[in-house]
């Protein structure tokens, strides 16, 4: 699986891979969503109005770190440098919100992956840095039976 990157030097930062992943100083990492106060639709990422009911009262909230596998594919062919195969998964989070990510710690085998299987979010460093050498943390899905890390 993913290797832990070399220890950062003091000038480098550890950043979230996407803005909706929040890395607290002391708290555990979590994903943030927006909930529409009028129709309860949940969105990931910034927006001006609710897409469903157009109201402007959207409140940030902490998304659950558990959910169920709504959809998936196993990606065998990708761009140069990207390790394959991997499972691209769509997960409905408990309490609302749907996110996409890699399902890991399970064989990328169509016979092993079940719709609606419970999954848990884990947060792990990725072995890639940006042009300035900053480190990144991403979220992954693991089968809920697994302890993850």
């Amino acid at each position, binding site marked *: 699986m993913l290797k832990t990157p070399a220890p950062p030097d003091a000038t480098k930062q550890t*950043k979230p*891979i*996407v803005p909706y992943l929040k890395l607290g100083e002391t708290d555990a990492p979590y994903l943030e969503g927006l909930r529409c106060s009028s129709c309860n*639709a949940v*969105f*990931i*990422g910034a927006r001006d109005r609710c*897409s*469903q009911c157009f109201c402007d009262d959207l409140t940030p909230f902490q998304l659950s770190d558990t959910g169920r596998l*709504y*959809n*998936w*594919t*196993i*990606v*065998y*062919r*990708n*761009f140069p440098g*990207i*390790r*394959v195969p*991997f499972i*691209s*998964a*769509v997960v*409905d989070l408990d309490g609302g919100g*749907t*996110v*996409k*990510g*890699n399902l890991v710690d399970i064989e990328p085998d*169509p016979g092993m992956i079940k*719709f609606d299987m419970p999954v848990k979010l884990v947060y792990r460093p*990725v072995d*890639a*840095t*940006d042009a300035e050498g*900053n480190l*990144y943390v*991403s*979220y992954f899905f693991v089968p809920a039976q697994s302890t993850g890390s």
Partner: protein
Amino acid sequence: MTDVCIVGSDMTRFGRYPEQNVPGIGAQGALLALKDAGLSIKDIQALYCGNQLEAKAMSGQRILHLIGQTGIPVVNCANACATGATALREGWIAIKAGLYDLVLCVGVEQMGRGLLGGTAAPNGIPVEGLLGSGTMPAVFAKVGMEHARKYGTTFEQFAKVSVKNHFHSQFNPKAMYQKPAALEEVMGAEMISYPNTKLMCSVNVDGAAAVVLASAKKARELGLRSRAITIRASTLTSDPYSERDLVMHDFNACTRLAARHAYEEAALGPEDIDMVELHDCFATAEIVHYENLGLAKEGEGATLIETKATYNGGRIPVNVSGGLLSKGHPLGATGIANICEVVSHLRGEAGSRQVQGARIGLTHVVGIGSAASVHILERAYP
């Protein structure tokens, strides 16, 4: 409002033409359609040009530089894989509005090989392969997997779509590939994104397709009514809100909306349609669109392919051109090429692949992001 007719229609053979360029390929398509109508660029009052990958490059004007600079208005359109259909619809709108009575619509694309899509990184590091996949094969694999989730659709059923469309392409001299592929060959090909193998992905090709549109009055004046095809409906939608569309493009909702509007506009139903060219960018998509377009009841899309109802000669032939899977998919040209295919059948000029007795046909495209367009065409004279 006036009826709008297609009075000229043709396309280049789809293939790989690395020694050519977008305006050159587009000019060939434009000249073919003009020739089909027996008209010249001097007769044309406006040009609507669809091209996706060089959207900023004034492709329409550069086509005119090659075939005649008459000073007419040119509109360049990009709308992902709905680009060609969007350009055509702009021409249709202009004639409906009474602004012009003779316009040219061209769709053209020159493609590289390999994967399209992927997830862009606005800042930081690329997320493709870390936060799932945004490649086209992965996106459309999930379209099929959602159908599998609901109805138990199998890898083999999706593969049968590719077998059908490759079979059909043998009879289309304009198709990139013109050879059949057996089920074992389709299922045994390199797996790209489960359940789509390489033979279940559309082919990246170069090509152009074009139509000349006329008001019904103008078509009569020009003596072009005998081969004219009436556009009974032209619809375009964007993606209405749906629950998971932030992470899973919803091609169903926009297609259903476009189809509903089209059937209303034409005062027709799916049972009235004799043939369909739909957006089989991946084999997984075709079965889903059977239901989206009302050709099959909910959950019964796979039955259509299992019973061969969508083969030429079946109850509702779909993609007798060979579809995007075998004819090829030059993005901006696709939404006009499928119109050209239906036109040739409605005129009774489709040769060995003629859908017998075809009088009304439907075309459909979707563009990721998203856009859907449906056109319904009918022979103007019985």
